[in-house]
C-alpha cells in the first residue's frame, strides 16, 4: 500500500520548516536509512531518512518550499508492485486526523499565534517616532545584540555548550564564531558548575562574560556560583569588585520535554539581591535589553524562551538601540482590568485581552520586561485606573512574581482595589510529559479570561 511521507518534527517546538532539498527523485528505489531530503528548521538543517524500503512514487512538496507544516504529506512511497497510478486513491484514503501532531500544533496555537496587539504598543515608545523598522525573530535579535556589543567591547565574550562550532543549540549564536573567532566564542565541556565559576572569575578579572546555559534548567548545577559568587561579591567586598556578566538561555517550558526540562525560574532569581533579572517578550525588547544587560556592571540573569525564539516582531533599525531596565511596557491600554505579565506569559495576556475586548471588557496589558528592578509604578498607576489586576506567568504558584505583586498592590493601592488580585500561574505540579496534561499544567488564555471576568464581576 502506498504510504505518505509526512513532514517530520525535528525538534520539540518545531511547527514548520523548509524542504531544502530532495536527495531522491521520483522513481528512485529507497532503502530504510537512505537520506530522502534535507529539511531546514529555524534551528538547523537536518537530514531526513527513509524508515521503510520502497520506491519514491511522487514528490508532493517541491524543494525550496518554505513553511511546510509538520505532518503535511511531502511525498508518497510505493511498495513493491505498486505504481504511481495507485497514488491518488491511496493517498486520499488516509485521514489526516490519524496523525496526532497537527492536534498538538493546534493546542499550542495559543502560544505561537498570539495575535499582534491592534493598539499601538509603543505608548511610551522605546525609539523615536518615524524610526525605520524591520521584522526579526527573537532569535535574530538576540544574536544581533551580542554581535553588536562584541564589536563594541573586546572584553565581551561568549561561553557555553555548543555556542561556537555547533552555532548554538538553539542557533542563537549563529555566525558569531565566524566573526569573532574561538578566543571570544568558546565551546565549553558539559560542566555548568565549572564554567560558570570560571566565568565569574573572568568577570572579577575584568572581562565581560556572556554565559549561555543551553537551558536554564542546567543552571541549577551552577546555582552556587551564580548566587554566592556572582550576586554577592560586590556587597561582600564593600563595593571593590563585582561580577559584570550575563547569564542567558531559554527558561520555562518548551514543549513535551518533561519535568526536568520545563521550569520557569523567574521568581527564584528575582528573589536575589545583587542579581538583575530580565525576561523579554518581543524581539525589540530582546535586543535592546540584552545590549543593556551586556553593558550592565552587575550580574544579569537574562531569561529567554524557546517557543518565542522563532516568533517575529518589529525591531527598530538604529545604530545603537537599548532598552533600560526597570521600565515596564504597556502593550495595550485599557480601563477595566490590568493584566500584568512578562516573557511568554505575554502571549496569554495579549490573547486574553483581545478576546475580552470582544465581550466589552477593556484590559490594559503590562509587560514587566525586567523583574529586578521591577517597575512597580507603572503597575500601581494602572491598577489605580482600572481598580483590578490579574497577573500571568508560567512559573509555579507558590512564591510567584504574581504573589509578590499582589502584596505590593495590597500595601500601596489597597483602597483602589475593587476585587482581589488574581494570580494566573502554572499549576503546582512537576511538568507532565503527556500532551493533554502538559497543556493543563501551563497557564492558559482561558484561565486569564476567566480571572479577568471574575475581577470585573462579569
Amino acid at each position: 500500500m502506498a504510504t505518505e511521507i509526512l513532514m517530520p518534527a525535528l525538534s520539540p517546538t518545531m511547527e514548520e520548516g523548509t524542504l531544502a532539498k530532495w536527495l531522491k527523485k521520483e522513481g528512485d528505489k529507497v532503502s530504510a536509512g537512505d537520506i530522502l531530503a534535507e529539511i531546514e528548521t529555524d534551528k538547523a538543517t537536518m537530514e531526513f531518512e527513509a524508515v521503510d524500503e520502497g520506491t519514491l512514487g511522487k514528490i508532493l512538496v517541491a524543494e525550496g518550499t518554505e513553511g511546510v507544516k509538520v505532518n503535511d504529506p511531502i511525498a508518497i512511497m510505493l511498495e513493491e508492485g505498486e505504481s504511481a497510478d495507485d497514488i491518488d486513491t491511496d493517498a486520499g484514503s488516509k485521514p489526516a486526523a490519524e496523525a496526532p501532531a497537527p492536534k498538538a500544533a493546534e493546542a499550542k496555537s495559543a502560544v505561537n499565534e498570539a495575535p499582534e496587539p491592534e493598539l499601538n504598543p509603543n505608548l511610551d515608545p522605546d525609539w523615536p517616532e518615524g524610526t525605520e523598522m524591520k521584522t526579526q525573530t527573537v532569535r535574530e535579535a538576540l544574536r544581533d545584540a551580542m554581535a553588536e556589543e562584541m564589536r563594541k567591547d573586546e572584553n565581551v565574550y561568549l561561553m557555553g555548550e555548543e555556542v561556537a562550532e555547533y552555532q548554538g543549540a538553539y542557533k542563537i549564536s549563529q555566525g558569531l564564531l565566524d566573526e569573532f573567532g574561538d578566543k571570544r566564542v568558546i565551546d565549553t565541556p558539559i560542566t555548568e558548575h565549572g564554567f560558570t565559576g570560571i566565568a565569574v572569575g573572568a568577570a572579577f578579572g575584568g572581562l565581560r562574560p556572556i554565559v549561555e546555559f543551553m537551558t536554564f534548567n542546567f543552571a541549577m548545577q551552577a546555582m552556587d556560583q551564580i548566587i554566592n559568587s556572582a550576586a554577592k561579591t560586590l556587597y561582600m567586598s564593600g563595593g571593590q569588585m563585582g561580577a559584570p556578566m550575563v547569564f542567558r538561555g531559554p527558561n520555562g517550558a518548551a514543549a513535551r520535554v518533561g519535568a526536568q526540562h520545563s521550569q520557569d525560574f523567574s521568581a527564584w532569581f528575582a528573589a536575589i539581591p545583587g542579581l538583575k533579572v530580565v525576561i523579554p517578550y518581543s524581539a525589540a525588547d530582546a535586543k535592546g535589553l540584552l545590549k543593556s544587560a551586556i553593558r550592565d556592571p552587575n550580574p544579569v540573569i537574562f531569561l529567554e524562551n524557546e517557543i518565542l525564539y522563532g516568533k517575529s516582531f518589529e525591531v527598530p533599525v538604529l545604530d545603537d538601540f537599548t532598552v533600560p531596565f526597570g521600565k515596564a511596557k504597556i502593550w495595550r491600554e485599557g480601563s477595566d482590568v490590568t493584566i500584568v505579565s512578562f516573557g511568554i506569559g505575554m502571549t496569554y495576556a495579549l490573547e486574553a485581552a483581545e478576546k475580552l475586548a470582544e465581550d466589552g471588557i477593556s484590559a490594559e496589558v503590562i509587560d514587566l520586561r525586567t523583574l529586578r528592578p521591577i517597575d512597580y509604578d507603572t503597575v500601581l498607576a494602572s491598577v489605580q485606573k482600572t481598580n483590578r489586576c490579574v497577573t500571568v506567568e508560567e512559573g509555579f504558584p507558590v512564591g510567584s512574581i504574581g504573589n509578590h505583586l499582589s502584596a505590593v498592590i495590597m500595601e500601596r493601592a489597597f483602597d483602589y482595589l475593587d476585587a482581589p488580585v488574581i494570580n494566573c500561574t502554572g499549576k503546582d505540579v512537576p511538568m507532565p510529559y503527556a500532551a493533554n496534561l502538559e497543556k493543563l499544567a501551563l497557564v492558559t488564555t482561558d484561565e486569564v479570561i476567566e480571572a479577568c471576568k471574575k475581577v470585573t464581576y462579569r
Partner: protein
Amino acid sequence: MAARKSSGTSAKPGANVSKDELLNYYRDMLLIRRFEEKAGQLYGMGLIGGFCHLYIGQEAVVVGLEAAAKEGDKRVTSYRDHGHMLACGMDPKGVMAELTGREGGYSKGKGGSMHMFSKEKHFYGGHGIVGAQVPIGAGLAFADKYKGNDNVTFAYFGDGAANQGQVYEAYNMAELWSLPVIFVIENNQYAMGTSVARSTKSASLWKRGAAYGIEGEEVDGMDVLAVKEAGEKAVAHCRAGNGPYILEVKTYRYRGHSMSDPAKYRTRDEVQKMREERDAIEHVRQLLITGEHASEDDLKAIDKDIKSVVNEAAEFSKESPEPALEELWTDIYAKVAPQNA
C-alpha cells in the same frame, strides 16, 4: 612527616638563600601568627563574631608561594584567608577591622572574616563555600590569558575542597585551555573534623591532576624554602604558557577548624609533636641563628616590631566605628554608566 624533607637539590637547607630573604620570611610568617593569635583573643572577647578560621601552623605555605609571585599575579582562597591577605601585602589594620565588622575593614565591615578582597593587591577573596574559589581562580587565569599578559593565579584550597566536583571541572578546563593557574592544595590533613584518610582512598591529592593531564607535585609545607622553590617551578611552568600546575602542600593547622571547634578528632600529642618538631617559623629562626644571619637580639627586635604592628591593628579594629546604617543599602548594585542616547 617525621623527618624534614630537603628543600630540593641543595645539600644544606638554606644554603642558597640570602639573609634578607630569610629575614623576610621570618617576619611575614611571624606577622601572620601573631595576627591570628590576636584575632583569637579578640574573638574570645566577643569583638569578632561568627566564623573565624585561623591560619596558625600553615604560614609557610602562603609566605613561600608569595615569594615566587610577581606584581600582577593574582590569588584567591577559601575562608581561611587572613594569612593570604597579610602575605600579599594587605594592611593588617584593614583586615583586623573587617574581622571586628567595622567601617575601616576591607569590606567596610560587610564581608567579615571569610569575605575580604583587595583589587589593589590582586586578592580576589575570601570565599565561604568550600571549593567555589577553584573555578574562580581558573577564571582569573582565563582573563589574564585572554588579555595576553603573563600573570599567573594562585588558587588555594584545602584537602576538604579537593573532594568537590567543581575542582575537577576546573582542572579539566584549565588544562584544556592552558590556563596559567596554580592549584594549591593546602593539605592540613583535616577537613573540619574529617581526616584525609577518612575522606578518600587516594592519599596523594595532587596525583588526581594526572587524569586531566596536569603536572604537579607534593611539597613540604612546613618548610618555607621548599614551598618557595616548588612555587617558582610552578610559576615558571604557567608563565611559559604550559597551562596549570598542582602543588599539594602538606601542612598542619594548630588550631581548630574554626574558633568553635573543640578538635576532638585528633590528640593533643599529635598537635604538640607538630609544633615542636615541624614548626615553620622555628625552622627559619634556626636557619637564621645557625647561619649567623641574625642574633637572638635581632630576632627579638623583629618580634617586638611585629607585636606593635599587630597591636596597632587590634587598636584600630576596636576604634574604627561600626559602619553607618546607610551602608546596609549600598554596594548591592554597581552603578550603570549613563547610556549615550
